[in-house]
């Protein structure tokens, strides 16, 4: 039997006059890998930021393990992101002054793990991701693929129950990106980590168990993700 781990209920979020999310309902099961796709500006990243507690929705609820998290304080949401929710951004966003091992150890140090234990865990994750050799290198000294894997190690070092990945590889046009995504999915499956993968790339979405398409801030049940309502014959009015 599947357990719902994370749920969006009627999420609404605007940036000034621009509505990014217009009532999104979504239930994600434990261990599920869900791809969120759709054209640019459809609200994919905003949905991910609301689900992961980075952003607060204007209306609606985010429920994680049966508990509302959208109304938690910034400090409580931050703590949740350090312990149970991992976030992986495009281009990794590593701290350029820190070595790979220090970058990976960072979330553990913030969660008050001892320096020695954090370093041991960081080295073990770098090894699992096949980049142990760059442990003491700075991000500027690494290849793009090594940086991506280090960022993945940092996202996984806290062994989160949910991993949010926003365009983790960019377009999947390099072997390094593909191998990194393969590892992400393999490790997530091994650890029963739930993954929410935001992407515009059909090949990346191919790694998920299920694909959710957004259109104009709402879930598009047709999957076509057509922006605007210009195409009368494939318009989805009444479907959703």
């Amino acid at each position, binding site marked *: 039997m599947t357990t719902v781990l994370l749920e969006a209920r009627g999420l609404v979020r605007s940036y000034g006059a621009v509505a990014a999310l217009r009532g999104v309902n979504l239930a994600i099961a434990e261990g599920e890998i869900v791809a969120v796709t759709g054209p640019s500006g459809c609200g994919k990243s905003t949905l991910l930021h609301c689900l992961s507690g980075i952003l607060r929705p204007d209306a609606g609820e985010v429920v994680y393990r049966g508990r509302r998290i959208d109304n938690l304080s910034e400090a409580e949401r931050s703590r949740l992101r350090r312990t149970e929710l991992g976030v992986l951004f495009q281009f990794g966003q590593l701290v350029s002054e820190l070595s790979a091992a220090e970058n990976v150890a960072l979330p553990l140090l913030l969660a008050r793990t001892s320096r020695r234990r954090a370093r041991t865990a960081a080295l073990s994750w770098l090894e699992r991701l096949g980049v142990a050799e760059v442990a003491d290198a700075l991000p500027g000294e690494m290849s793009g693929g090594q940086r991506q894997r280090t960022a993945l190690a940092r996202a996984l070092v806290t062994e989160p129950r949910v991993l949010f990945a926003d365009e983790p590889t960019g377009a999947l046009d390099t072997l390094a990106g593909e191998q990194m995504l393969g590892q992400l*999915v393999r490790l997530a499956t091994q650890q029963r980590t739930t993954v929410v993968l935001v992407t515009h790339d059909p*090949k990346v*979405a191919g790694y998920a168990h299920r*694909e959710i398409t957004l259109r104009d801030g709402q879930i598009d049940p047709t*999957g076509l*993700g057509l*922006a605007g309502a*210009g195409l009368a*014959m*494939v318009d989805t009015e009444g479907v959703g």
Partner: protein
Amino acid sequence: MLLGLLAGGPRHGYELKRSYDEQLPRARPLAFGQVYTTLARLVRDGLVTPVGQDQAGGPERTSYAITAEGLAGLRAWLTAVEPPAPHVAGALLAKVVVALFAADAATARDYLVAQRATHAARLRELTALKADPATGLSDVIALDYAITHLDADLRWLRTTLERVATQAQEGSA
């Protein structure tokens, strides 16, 4: 393909079928009958020659070897560039065009939604196979070929719908 497999040394029909299935596991399986009719044709054309029989604990089997002429033919085949398709056509293209420009709105929408979902489901299925560490290199190469084509179809479908939507908007503006 059989000539290519024989370039590695003499083999009998059963071994050829097994190698073919290993090298191209996603291809339509090769029937035994087809292996033997092809071998007979290659022998007739002088590209392959029977080189002996063995009966190691089973039925008698004839081994075949590639001839010098066969090797020359194989080299010629490998050096001839595969021409890109001369005409732009395909069942998917035809259906999408008819759906967009000749069908009623509901039929067109239902078809496009179902076609996209079917392509995406197949893409997920093949990606799961490709990501399995137990999948061998030749299988990964074949899967990648199929995945890349599905990906191209999905991208083309999305661009086409956007293009038609934009045209419709500009037309009604």
